């Protein structure tokens, strides 16, 4: 049977679905006829940026693993990193920005659900979730609403499925008011022999649809993610899927158990573009085809058309290809867990996806064309006009604060710096009883049972830096993530990225994208942390404004002996407080400290105290950065350190304050500076880590420092219950730890509970 | 075919935290004459065939599962087909 005599599709129809005239032309060329309505829908969704990466693909080749994969064996399986002992880990971060902007609770919940399915569909048990969130300021009621419900949705889903949410980040900046960002990351662990593949192997093998019933939710969600948000988006609420974490939990257990039968030859989760995506991708990867009958799909609603069934993004569903004759064995496992597993079709040898509506053939398209041959575009880039102005801002005209303690308190209480306990307190971060470092430290640490090892994980991106210089900002995101890992004692093993940008069809936004990807790719290569998975989210803009370019990196590291893990709070009165840094701070010989004025560029201090996002991001020397990490990791391995905390947002003063607050102890600190004291306190100079250690261990630390050729400076001692900081022997900050704690800990909660 | 509407509410003795939040929100919107807000659950049940024990059955459903008599009250109405 084949499709003939099709009528041309009204241009309005395919344009509304997001296809250009040119793309429509290409479809007719491939098919040798006009497409059916169902087929146009399938092409529109698979060839959207969200599924087909039609704009980003040429740029993503900067990532070495990605390039290898598309030039060679395909992306399959690229995401698994060996951690020894027969185990592999896989991890991925993905955006759910647009759904969360429209319906924050369900948008966030289904974001978590989707990323978890990406993990267990590979045969891995999900062991942790992280998330990276951005909103407008909490002084606005709409932003509070979005924040409350995004956090609620993440908790609702993650808590129920029993996967701990262990780390992440939350930033508040005006540019995210119209476009909040929700990037959800998940980590899974598996024995190498348990890896599952998303391939439709074996001609004649039955194709099973498992999990939830299919309804009309989320139709064209993928194309939805590929347009700018307007008021009309509000009215598109039917595009947002509803999450059912209870079913997801059953699906996790059933899938992992069913894979153990050995009868599943291929499996893929259903996210964007639902049955369309999973059928054509699994077929394309195996070089096979597939025949499915939409009338066999268990439905939740009556009267659904083939078009709707093929494009539905109903959640908690998977497509499984099963060895012929064993479909009942596999179905029995799903049935045990109370889930559907229904044969909807079979694998064919002709490379085509055939969609039947009962006896009627409604679509017949080459799997590979749909899955892999989305047209790609080389978009124009141009350096944004604003850059020169902001970069050349004269930082020397910034006024010094009259009261440094007050300035410190203000920065401590700023929404982006303040404790995120209000957030992670709503997430179950301990279930599975592997969380060895709880949220709140630089990176979360999970022990790996049956080994001595630990996995450290973090997400990072300073969007303001990327706005001021996307290349450098993206490099710093990776460097800071690696620094977070180092503070727990871990060396990086792999990375995942979530690239959040504005409209790529605007040359300035695409320039930001290209620069950021280049910076991130180079930095990841440098840290031997290959980018093994990722996601691109464009069109994060409203008619009023675009977001800061926000290339979020999720970084994973390994600690050889998890018992040695380190945390960021000061622990013992009398310990030395030392700054490990790439460059000299207090030059004791020359008494000529480095001026850090430039490193105030893009700082939280400028943002909070002066309302400015100007300057250039701090300089970064990757080589020195890595050496600083190595010093700290070796010192942790040698058991020298009581604490390690990275200097990042808010600078040295905030790093010290946080170590005091979390340890409920004070410190006496003296700094030297040959420029404005505010820079000494709040500049966000890179490659710096504040450590504390017993005084008798200083010699051993210095040996490691010397061996690697970086700098260490004794800043003072852990002592009393106040943080006192003098600069050039003038006392500038004197803050009781209890007061700092109150400001830092309650800043967000008090705004949310008003 | 009969339709049954079941309403489950927290007993008056219990603090209804959700109701309190909603009341506050309504007051913020300027509805200042609100005496109280109590939240509850509304459950729609469709029953095939109407034998004589429907009322008894629904009461048992409520007592056994739909409401927790320790903390909740329930009431129901049976809406016959076509009414």
């Amino acid at each position, binding site marked *: 049977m084949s499709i003939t005599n099709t009528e041309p599709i009204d241009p309005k129809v395919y344009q509304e679905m997001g296809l250009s005239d040119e793309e429509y032309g290409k479809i007719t060329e491939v098919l040798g006829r006009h497409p059916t309505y169902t087929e146009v829908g399938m092409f529109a969704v698979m060839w959207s940026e969200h599924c087909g990466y039609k704009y980003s693909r040429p740029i993503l080749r900067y990532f070495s693993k990605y390039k290898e994969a598309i030039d060679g064996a395909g992306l399959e399986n690229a995401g698994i990193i060996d951690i020894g002992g027969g185990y592999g880990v896989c991890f991925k971060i993905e955006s759910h920005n647009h759904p969360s902007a429209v319906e924050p609770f369900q948008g966030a919940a289904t974001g978590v659900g989707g990323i978890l399915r990406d993990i267990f569909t590979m045969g891995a048990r999900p062991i942790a979730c992280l998330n990276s969130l951005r909103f407008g300021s909490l002084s606005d009621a709409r932003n509070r609403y979005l924040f409350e419900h995004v956090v609620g949705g993440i908790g609702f889903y993650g*808590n129920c499925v029993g996967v701990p949410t262990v780390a992440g980040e939350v930033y508040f900046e005006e540019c995210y008011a119209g476009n909040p960002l929700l990037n959800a990351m998940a980590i899974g662990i598996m024995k190498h022999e348990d890896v599952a593949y998303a391939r439709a192997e074996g001609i004649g093998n039955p194709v099973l649809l498992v999990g939830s019933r299919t309804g009309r939710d989320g139709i064209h969600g993928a194309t939805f993610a590929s347009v700018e948000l307007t008021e009309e988006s509000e009215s598109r609420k039917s595009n947002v899927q509803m999450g*059912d974490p*209870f079913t997801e939990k059953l699906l996790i257990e059933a899938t992992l158990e069913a894979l153990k039968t050995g009868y599943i030859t291929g499996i893929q989760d259903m996210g964007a573009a639902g049955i369309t995506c999973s059928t054509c991708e699994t077929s394309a990867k195996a070089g096979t085809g597939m025949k499915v009958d939409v009338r066999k799909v268990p439905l939740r609603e009556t009267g659904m058309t083939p078009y709707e069934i093929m494009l539905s993004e109903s959640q908690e569903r998977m497509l499984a290809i099963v060895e012929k004759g064993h479909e009942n064995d596999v179905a029995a496992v799903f049935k045990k867990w109370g889930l559907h597993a229904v044969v909807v079709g079979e694998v064919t040898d002709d490379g085509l996806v055939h969609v039947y509506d009962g006896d009627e053939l409604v679509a017949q398209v080459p799997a590979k064309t749909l899955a892999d041959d989305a047209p790609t575009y080389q978009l124009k880039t141009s350096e944004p006009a604003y850059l020169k102005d902001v970069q050349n801002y004269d930082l020397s005209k910034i006024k010094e604060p009259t009261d440094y303690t007050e300035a410190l308190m203000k920065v401590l209480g700023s929404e982006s710096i303040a404790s995120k306990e209000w957030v992670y307190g*709503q997430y179950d971060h*301990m279930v599975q*009883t592997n969380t060895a470092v709880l949220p709140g430290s630089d990176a979360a640490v999970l022990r790996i049972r049956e080994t001595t090892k630990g996995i450290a994980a973090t997400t990072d991106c300073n969007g303001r830096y990327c706005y001021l210089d996307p290349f450098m900002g993206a490099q710093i995101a990776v460097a800071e993530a690696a620094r977070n890992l180092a503070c727990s004692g871990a060396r990086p093993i792999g990375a995942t990225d979530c690239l959040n940008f504005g409209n790529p069809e605007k040359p300035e936004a695409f320039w930001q994208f290209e620069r950021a990807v280049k910076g991130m790719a180079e930095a990841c290569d440098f840290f031997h942390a290959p980018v093994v998975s990722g996601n691109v989210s464009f069109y994060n803009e409203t008619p009023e404004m675009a977001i800061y370019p926000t290339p979020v990196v999720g970084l994973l590291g390994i600690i050889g002996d998890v018992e040695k893990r380190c945390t960021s709070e000061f622990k013992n009165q009398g310990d030395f407080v030392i700054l490990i840094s790439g460059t000299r701070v207090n030059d004791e010989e020359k008494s000529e400290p480095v001026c850090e004025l430039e490193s105030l560029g893009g700082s939280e201090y400028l943002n909070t105290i002066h309302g400015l996002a100007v300057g250039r991001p701090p300089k970064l020397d990757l080589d020195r950065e890595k050496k600083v990490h190595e010093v700290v990791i070796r010192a942790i391995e040698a058991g020298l350190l009581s604490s390690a905390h990275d200097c990042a947002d808010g600078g040295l003063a905030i790093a010290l304050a946080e170590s005091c607050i979390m340890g409920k102890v004070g410190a006496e600190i003296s700094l030297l500076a040959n420029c404005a004291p505010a820079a000494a306190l709040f500049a966000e100079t890179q490659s710096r880590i504040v450590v504390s250690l017993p005084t008798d261990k200083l010699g051993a630390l210095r040996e490691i420092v010397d061996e690697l050729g970086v700098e260490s400076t004794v800043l003072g001692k852990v002592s009393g219950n106040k943080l006192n900081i003098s600069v050039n022997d003038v006392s500038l900050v004197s803050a009781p730890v209890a007061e700092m704690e109150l400001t830092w800990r309650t800043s967000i909660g008090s705004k949310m509970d008003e | 075919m009969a339709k049954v509407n079941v309403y489950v509410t*927290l007993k008056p003795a219990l603090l209804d935290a959700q109701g309190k939040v909603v009341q506050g929100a309504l007051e913020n919107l300027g509805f200042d004459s609100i005496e109280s807000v109590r939240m509850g659950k509304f459950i729609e049940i469709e029953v095939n065939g109407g034998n004589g024990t429907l009322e008894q059955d629904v009461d048992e459903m409520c007592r*056994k599962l739909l409401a927790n008599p320790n903390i909740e009250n329930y009431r129901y109405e049976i809406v016959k087909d076509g009414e």
Partner: protein
Amino acid sequence: MKFGVVIFPGSNCDQDAFCAVRDVLGQPVEYIWHQSTDVSGFDCIVLPGGFSYGDYLRTGAVARFSPVMNAVQDFADNGGRLIGICNGFQILCEAHLLPGALIDNNGLRFICKHVNLRVENNNTDFTNLCSEGQVLSIPIAHHGGNYYADADTLKKIEDNNQVILRYCDSAGKVTPEANPNGSLNNIAGIINDRGNVAGMMPHPERAVESILGSEDGTLILQSIVERLMA
């Protein structure tokens, strides 16, 4: 001696409880599927935490009608040791194996954190290794852990020493500030009047190794072993 850990659809602390018993207590333990109707051979049954049946309708309301619950009821009636943790506690209340009910936290948000608990009665099957008034650090993780009972029931369980754990501050003082969820009388854990069934919102199985930040939960679980060996 054999422990059993029940798996309901949606349980998610079953494995944690299982590992705590096997690896920390060093006792034999098996899973019990929710459709099982026979629990013979077990000396202690754990109803673990999680979101049985998605917590839909009310926490624990659907799970209590799982096939296994008839057998669990008989097990308890015959004096078997039964402990419900978090969602397990909610199920036991719904099943009327323990008095009272657990309603939404008064802050209406999920709370996950370490809390301090004061041991109110150390002469029970579940607390005999603790000293009276001892402060334990054990995490909570729940949305509906707000203990409620009508005045008569509350008086009865208080008079009868059935409250075994209360939320307190680090010095052991039972204060409103130390109450995370609005529970009446800061109640965190209770036993039935016969003393063989316990329910607690905090998760002892999450506090059994130093790497998890506390080992105080071991005292609760090991107390059961102690009593069974006696």
